[in-house]
Protein backbone atom coordinates (compact mmCIF):
# COMPACT_ATOMS: atom_id res chain seq x y z
CA UNK A 1 0.00 0.00 0.00
CA UNK A 2 2.95 2.30 -0.55
CA UNK A 3 3.66 4.88 2.09
CA UNK A 4 0.17 5.11 3.56
CA UNK A 5 0.48 5.23 7.32
CA UNK A 6 -1.19 2.25 9.05
CA UNK A 7 -3.48 4.49 11.07
CA UNK A 8 -4.64 6.39 8.01
CA UNK A 9 -5.34 3.12 6.23
CA UNK A 10 -7.14 1.76 9.28
CA UNK A 11 -9.40 4.81 9.41
CA UNK A 12 -10.32 4.61 5.71
CA UNK A 13 -11.18 0.90 6.06
CA UNK A 14 -13.13 1.66 9.23
CA UNK A 15 -15.24 4.16 7.27
CA UNK A 16 -16.23 1.27 5.00
CA UNK A 17 -17.13 -0.91 7.96
CA UNK A 18 -14.01 -3.04 7.77
CA UNK A 19 -12.20 -3.80 11.01
CA UNK A 20 -8.45 -4.26 10.89
CA UNK A 21 -5.68 -3.83 13.38
CA UNK A 22 -3.18 -1.06 12.72
CA UNK A 23 0.05 -0.01 14.35
CA UNK A 24 2.68 -1.81 16.41
CA UNK A 25 0.61 -4.87 17.37
CA UNK A 26 2.54 -4.66 20.65
CA UNK A 27 5.77 -5.61 18.84
CA UNK A 28 7.83 -2.42 18.80
CA UNK A 29 11.18 -4.29 18.64
CA UNK A 30 10.03 -6.15 15.51
CA UNK A 31 8.85 -2.94 13.86
CA UNK A 32 12.19 -1.30 14.67
CA UNK A 33 13.94 -4.31 13.15
CA UNK A 34 11.98 -3.77 9.92
CA UNK A 35 12.43 -0.02 10.10
CA UNK A 36 8.71 0.70 9.87
CA UNK A 37 6.33 2.59 12.11
CA UNK A 38 3.68 -0.11 12.00
CA UNK A 39 1.58 -2.33 9.79
CA UNK A 40 -2.08 -2.78 8.96
CA UNK A 41 -3.30 -6.31 9.50
CA UNK A 42 -6.43 -7.85 8.07
CA UNK A 43 -7.37 -11.26 9.43
CA UNK A 44 -9.91 -13.69 8.08
CA UNK A 45 -11.92 -16.36 9.77
CA UNK A 46 -14.52 -18.94 8.82
CA UNK A 47 -17.40 -16.48 9.02
CA UNK A 48 -15.92 -14.08 6.45
CA UNK A 49 -17.53 -14.20 3.02
CA UNK A 50 -16.11 -13.76 -0.47
CA UNK A 51 -18.06 -10.51 -0.79
CA UNK A 52 -16.33 -9.18 2.27
CA UNK A 53 -12.95 -9.92 0.72
CA UNK A 54 -14.05 -8.01 -2.39
CA UNK A 55 -15.18 -5.18 -0.20
CA UNK A 56 -11.77 -5.08 1.46
CA UNK A 57 -10.01 -4.99 -1.92
CA UNK A 58 -12.29 -2.21 -3.08
CA UNK A 59 -11.65 -0.24 0.07
CA UNK A 60 -7.88 -0.68 -0.27
CA UNK A 61 -8.10 0.76 -3.77
CA UNK A 62 -10.02 3.70 -2.44
CA UNK A 63 -7.36 4.34 0.19
CA UNK A 64 -4.69 4.19 -2.48
CA UNK A 65 -6.52 6.76 -4.60
CA UNK A 66 -6.88 9.01 -1.60
CA UNK A 67 -3.31 8.80 -0.36
CA UNK A 68 -1.05 7.58 -3.13
CA UNK A 69 0.01 11.00 -4.27
CA UNK A 70 0.19 12.32 -0.78
CA UNK A 71 3.42 11.01 0.71
CA UNK A 72 5.39 14.03 1.93
CA UNK A 73 7.61 15.44 -0.79
CA UNK A 74 6.41 13.05 -3.47
CA UNK A 75 3.28 14.83 -4.56
CA UNK A 76 2.43 14.39 -8.18
CA UNK A 77 -0.73 15.43 -9.93
CA UNK A 78 -2.94 12.41 -10.17
CA UNK A 79 -5.06 11.54 -13.16
CA UNK A 80 -8.72 11.56 -12.38
CA UNK A 81 -9.23 8.25 -10.60
CA UNK A 82 -11.21 5.66 -12.47
CA UNK A 83 -14.31 4.75 -10.55
CA UNK A 84 -13.62 1.48 -8.83
CA UNK A 85 -16.07 -1.18 -9.85
CA UNK A 86 -18.58 -2.07 -7.23
CA UNK A 87 -17.74 -5.65 -6.27
CA UNK A 88 -21.17 -6.57 -4.91
CA UNK A 89 -22.86 -5.62 -8.21
CA UNK A 90 -20.36 -7.72 -10.13
CA UNK A 91 -21.26 -10.71 -8.02
CA UNK A 92 -24.96 -10.16 -8.66
CA UNK A 93 -24.48 -10.13 -12.43
CA UNK A 94 -22.90 -13.56 -12.44
Amino acid sequence: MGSIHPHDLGTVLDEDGIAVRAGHHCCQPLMRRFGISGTTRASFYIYNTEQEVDKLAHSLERAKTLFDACAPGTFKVQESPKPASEPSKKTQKK
Partner: protein
Amino acid sequence: MEIPDELYREVILDHYRSPRHHGKMEKPDVLEWGKNPLCGDELELYLTVNGDKITDLKFDGKGCSISQASASMMTEAVVGKSLAQVKAIVSDFKGMMMEGKPADALPDDLEDAKSLEGVQKYPVRIKCALLSWNTLLEALKKLESRKAA
Protein backbone atom coordinates in the same frame (compact mmCIF):
# COMPACT_ATOMS: atom_id res chain seq x y z
CA MET B 1 -18.87 3.96 0.80
CA GLU B 2 -17.89 7.59 0.58
CA ILE B 3 -14.48 9.00 1.24
CA PRO B 4 -14.29 10.35 4.77
CA ASP B 5 -14.24 13.87 3.40
CA GLU B 6 -14.63 15.42 6.73
CA LEU B 7 -11.50 13.79 8.06
CA TYR B 8 -9.30 13.87 5.00
CA ARG B 9 -10.11 17.26 3.62
CA GLU B 10 -8.03 18.60 0.79
CA VAL B 11 -6.39 21.16 3.04
CA ILE B 12 -5.20 18.41 5.39
CA LEU B 13 -3.78 16.35 2.53
CA ASP B 14 -2.13 19.48 1.17
CA HIS B 15 -0.30 20.11 4.44
CA TYR B 16 0.60 16.43 4.57
CA ARG B 17 2.11 16.33 1.11
CA SER B 18 3.81 19.73 1.33
CA PRO B 19 4.45 20.41 5.01
CA ARG B 20 5.33 24.01 5.91
CA HIS B 21 8.43 24.71 8.00
CA HIS B 22 9.54 21.13 7.66
CA GLY B 23 13.12 20.14 8.41
CA LYS B 24 15.80 20.58 11.01
CA MET B 25 17.51 23.67 12.38
CA GLU B 26 21.25 23.99 12.94
CA LYS B 27 21.21 26.06 16.11
CA PRO B 28 17.74 26.30 17.59
CA ASP B 29 17.13 28.17 20.82
CA VAL B 30 14.92 25.32 21.95
CA LEU B 31 14.69 21.75 20.73
CA GLU B 32 11.86 19.63 22.05
CA TRP B 33 10.87 16.06 21.28
CA GLY B 34 7.38 14.72 21.22
CA LYS B 35 6.45 11.09 21.05
CA ASN B 36 3.29 9.13 20.90
CA PRO B 37 4.32 5.66 22.01
CA LEU B 38 0.94 4.15 21.21
CA CYS B 39 1.11 4.88 17.51
CA GLY B 40 4.83 5.48 17.07
CA ASP B 41 4.52 9.09 15.96
CA GLU B 42 7.68 11.07 16.61
CA LEU B 43 8.28 14.77 16.35
CA GLU B 44 11.24 17.11 16.73
CA LEU B 45 10.41 20.76 17.16
CA TYR B 46 13.03 23.49 16.66
CA LEU B 47 12.40 27.05 17.84
CA THR B 48 14.22 30.29 17.26
CA VAL B 49 13.14 32.87 19.79
CA ASN B 50 13.99 36.54 19.67
CA GLY B 51 13.01 38.39 22.82
CA ASP B 52 9.39 37.51 23.30
CA LYS B 53 8.74 36.28 19.78
CA ILE B 54 9.01 32.97 18.00
CA THR B 55 10.78 34.14 14.88
CA ASP B 56 11.20 30.75 13.28
CA LEU B 57 10.34 27.15 13.92
CA LYS B 58 10.78 23.88 12.15
CA PHE B 59 9.53 20.37 12.68
CA ASP B 60 10.73 16.99 11.63
CA GLY B 61 9.43 13.55 12.35
CA LYS B 62 7.24 10.77 11.16
CA GLY B 63 3.65 9.96 11.63
CA CYS B 64 0.25 9.69 10.07
CA SER B 65 -1.30 12.33 7.85
CA ILE B 66 -3.21 13.88 10.74
CA SER B 67 -0.16 14.35 12.96
CA GLN B 68 2.03 15.70 10.16
CA ALA B 69 -0.61 18.03 8.75
CA SER B 70 -1.46 19.30 12.21
CA ALA B 71 2.21 20.08 12.91
CA SER B 72 2.47 21.94 9.61
CA MET B 73 -0.65 23.98 10.37
CA MET B 74 0.66 24.77 13.83
CA THR B 75 3.93 26.20 12.52
CA GLU B 76 2.03 28.54 10.23
CA ALA B 77 -0.23 29.66 13.04
CA VAL B 78 2.48 30.54 15.57
CA VAL B 79 5.52 31.80 13.65
CA GLY B 80 6.10 35.49 14.31
CA LYS B 81 3.86 35.50 17.37
CA SER B 82 4.70 36.45 20.95
CA LEU B 83 4.86 33.70 23.54
CA ALA B 84 1.61 34.90 25.11
CA GLN B 85 -0.13 34.89 21.74
CA VAL B 86 1.20 31.40 21.03
CA LYS B 87 -0.20 30.09 24.30
CA ALA B 88 -3.59 31.57 23.47
CA ILE B 89 -3.52 29.99 19.99
CA VAL B 90 -2.61 26.57 21.39
CA SER B 91 -5.34 26.86 23.97
CA ASP B 92 -7.90 27.77 21.29
CA PHE B 93 -6.90 24.79 19.18
CA LYS B 94 -6.99 22.36 22.09
CA GLY B 95 -10.37 23.80 23.06
CA MET B 96 -11.72 22.76 19.70
CA MET B 97 -10.13 19.31 19.73
CA MET B 98 -10.78 18.35 23.34
CA GLU B 99 -13.80 20.34 24.45
CA GLY B 100 -15.64 20.37 21.16
CA LYS B 101 -15.66 24.15 20.82
CA PRO B 102 -16.88 25.14 17.35
CA ALA B 103 -14.22 25.68 14.68
CA ASP B 104 -15.99 28.83 13.52
CA ALA B 105 -15.10 30.49 16.79
CA LEU B 106 -11.38 30.06 16.18
CA PRO B 107 -9.25 33.09 15.25
CA ASP B 108 -8.03 33.59 11.67
CA ASP B 109 -4.55 32.37 12.61
CA LEU B 110 -6.07 28.92 12.87
CA GLU B 111 -7.86 29.06 9.52
CA ASP B 112 -6.26 25.86 8.16
CA ALA B 113 -6.32 24.13 11.54
CA LYS B 114 -10.12 24.47 11.52
CA SER B 115 -10.14 21.65 8.99
CA LEU B 116 -9.04 19.27 11.76
CA GLU B 117 -12.43 19.70 13.45
CA GLY B 118 -13.58 16.41 11.90
CA VAL B 119 -10.91 14.53 13.86
CA GLN B 120 -13.05 15.02 16.98
CA LYS B 121 -15.26 12.22 15.73
CA TYR B 122 -12.32 9.80 15.77
CA PRO B 123 -11.26 9.70 19.43
CA VAL B 124 -8.20 7.55 18.74
CA ARG B 125 -6.93 10.11 16.26
CA ILE B 126 -7.24 13.19 18.49
CA LYS B 127 -3.86 12.49 20.04
CA CYS B 128 -2.33 12.48 16.54
CA ALA B 129 -3.60 16.00 15.97
CA LEU B 130 -2.43 17.19 19.39
CA LEU B 131 1.12 15.81 19.39
CA SER B 132 2.80 18.86 17.85
CA TRP B 133 0.78 21.35 19.90
CA ASN B 134 1.63 19.61 23.17
CA THR B 135 5.28 19.44 22.12
CA LEU B 136 5.18 23.20 21.53
CA LEU B 137 3.80 23.75 25.03
CA GLU B 138 6.65 21.66 26.45
CA ALA B 139 9.14 23.73 24.45
CA LEU B 140 7.66 26.94 25.90
CA LYS B 141 7.92 25.48 29.41
CA LYS B 142 11.57 24.70 28.77
CA LEU B 143 12.13 28.24 27.57
CA GLU B 144 10.43 29.77 30.59
CA SER B 145 12.30 27.64 33.10
CA ARG B 146 15.52 28.68 31.41
CA LYS B 147 14.56 32.34 31.64
CA ALA B 148 13.64 31.96 35.29
CA ALA B 149 16.96 30.33 36.12
